[in-house]
């Protein structure tokens, strides 16, 4: 594989950039693989990369119904953080933060990781207490957390609404300085390019039609491009998890829901942090191109539409304007939607299943993008070793049976309905 560097850039400039290698090949599927990963999104591509890199398993195919990176890895708001209170979430996410910091070097691909910090705003004394508790839990797990008072927040984000008599006054906030953003498409492309270079087949336009299971063991997958035998199969299909689960006669604690995001027209640099509204569900950051990148609540009903509906957008942007009134002056540039695999306790599932050789990676809710490297790393371990790693032990499927829910928000079942 051609290494990307200043030297290769200069060298290729002499031939008008016409002789670059393809970043990944377009192979026809073989009859059999050691591992087939279904889903060519961030998590699937990362899983294949870590299977090859960490476990030396390279007879691997990724099969993708559309094109790689066309789902949620290309549709998110690029936020990366590990500001969780519960140990299982905190340790998993912080392990991921380490992978993010090294990712551009590791993949020889600039993923534009920008650890600009995230601030969760608090709008009451009670919320400040909750944030103090969460911040302390984070620090006990080795994650950076700073509790800010109103004046400190005002110094960092003066454009937020600090006027008197507002409905949701800003009391302060919890900041994780090491959190940030990254270029989401580059993450997919970087993993794809490296996985391909180590021998992984990336097979696009290949839809799963069914599975071959006999005597409780996975034998292969039937696709629109022929049958493929596989010793092990991993599902990484986010919002389409239920569609594949039905083909396997499984019913999962997952519902598929629609989440929208939007960007404004580009403006000059105004916001150098990720900020979340504490009295509702709204988050914002500014992209390198100057667009304000915003998102918030689900549309609220089961959906596979991958496109949004106006009432939710209006609701989300009303919160945004309550938090930062200048947003009302901006024109909207684009809105879009993606379909989320909402788990019943708000935490993901990375586990083996009752079918031998079939592995499950789903339930990422709103937080799939930031988990990309840690999810790929632990899922690769789970597949290669046929046992979960201690980092994803808490993300087991059986927790819904036993009652050991990983309920970060403390809201109980169907956390998104509140």
């Amino acid at each position, binding site marked *: 594989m051609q290494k990307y560097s200043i030297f290769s850039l200069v060298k290729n400039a002499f031939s008008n950039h016409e002789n670059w290698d393809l970043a990944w090949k377009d192979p026809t599927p073989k009859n059999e693989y050691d591992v087939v990963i279904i889903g060519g999104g961030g998590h699937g591509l990362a899983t294949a990369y870590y299977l090859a890199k960490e476990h030396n398993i390279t007879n691997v195919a990724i099969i993708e119904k559309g094109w790689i990176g066309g789902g949620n890895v290309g549709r998110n708001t690029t936020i990366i953080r590990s500001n969780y209170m519960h140990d299982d979430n905190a340790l998993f996410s912080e392990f991921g933060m380490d992978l993010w910091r090294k990712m551009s070097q590791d993949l020889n691909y600039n993923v534009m990781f920008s650890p600009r910090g995230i601030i969760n705003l608090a709008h009451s004394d009670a919320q400040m207490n909750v944030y103090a508790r969460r911040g302390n839990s984070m620090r006990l797990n080795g994650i950076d957390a700073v509790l800010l008072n109103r004046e400190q927040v005002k110094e960092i984000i003066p454009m937020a609404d600090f006027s008197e008599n507002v409905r949701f006054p800003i009391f302060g906030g919890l900041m994780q300085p090491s959190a940030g953003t990254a270029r989401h498409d580059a993450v997919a492309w970087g993993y794809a390019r490296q996985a391909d270079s180590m021998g992984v087949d990336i097979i696009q336009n290949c839809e799963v039609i069914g599975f071959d299971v006999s005597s409780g063991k996975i034998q292969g997958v039937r696709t629109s491009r022929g049958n493929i035998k596989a010793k092990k199969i991993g599902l990484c299909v986010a919002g389409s998890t*239920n*569609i594949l689960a*039905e083909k396997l006669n499984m*019913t*999962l*604690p*997952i*519902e*598929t829901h629609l989440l929208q995001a939007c960007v404004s027209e580009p403006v000059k640099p105004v916001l150098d942090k990720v900020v979340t509204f504490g009295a509702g569900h709204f988050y914002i950051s500014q992209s390198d191109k100057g667009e304000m990148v915003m998102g918030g609540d689900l549309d*609220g*009903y*089961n*959906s*596979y*539409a991958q496109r949004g*509906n*106006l*009432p939710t957008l209006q609701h989300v942007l009303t919160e945004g304007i309550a938090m930062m009134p200048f947003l009302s002056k901006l024109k909207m540039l684009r809105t879009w939607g993606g379909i989320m695999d909402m788990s*019943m306790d708000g935490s993901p599932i990375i586990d083996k299943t009752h079918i031998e050789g079939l592995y499950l990676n789903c339930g990422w809710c709103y937080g799939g993008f930031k988990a990309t490297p840690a999810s790929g790393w632990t899922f690769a371990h789970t597949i290669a070793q046929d046992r979960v790693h201690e980092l994803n032990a808490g993300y087991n499927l059986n927790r*819904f*049976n036993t009652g050991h829910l990983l309920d970060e928000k403390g809201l109980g*079942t*169907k956390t998104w*309905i509140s």
Partner: protein
Amino acid sequence: MLHIKCPHCGMRSQNEFSYGGDASVKRPELGKEVTDEEWNNFVYNRKSLRGKHWELWQHLSGCRQWIKVERDTATHEIFNTLKANEEIS
């Protein structure tokens, strides 16, 4: 914007309704021995498929009645609505 025909009030905008999830889910019979698996299925496990889906909505800013709606989860087309006590045929 979805337009939902409330069986009590007629056609109204989505803004008047709140969502209540899969309407085909049945609570295990009271007074009967319930296994962990049955309870787990009732509380957590959902088919949530692409295509036609019977679901509960509440006409929260209208008559406040719960209703059943048959809607396509991919196209958002609404085929049918029923009162809460009417059986899905």
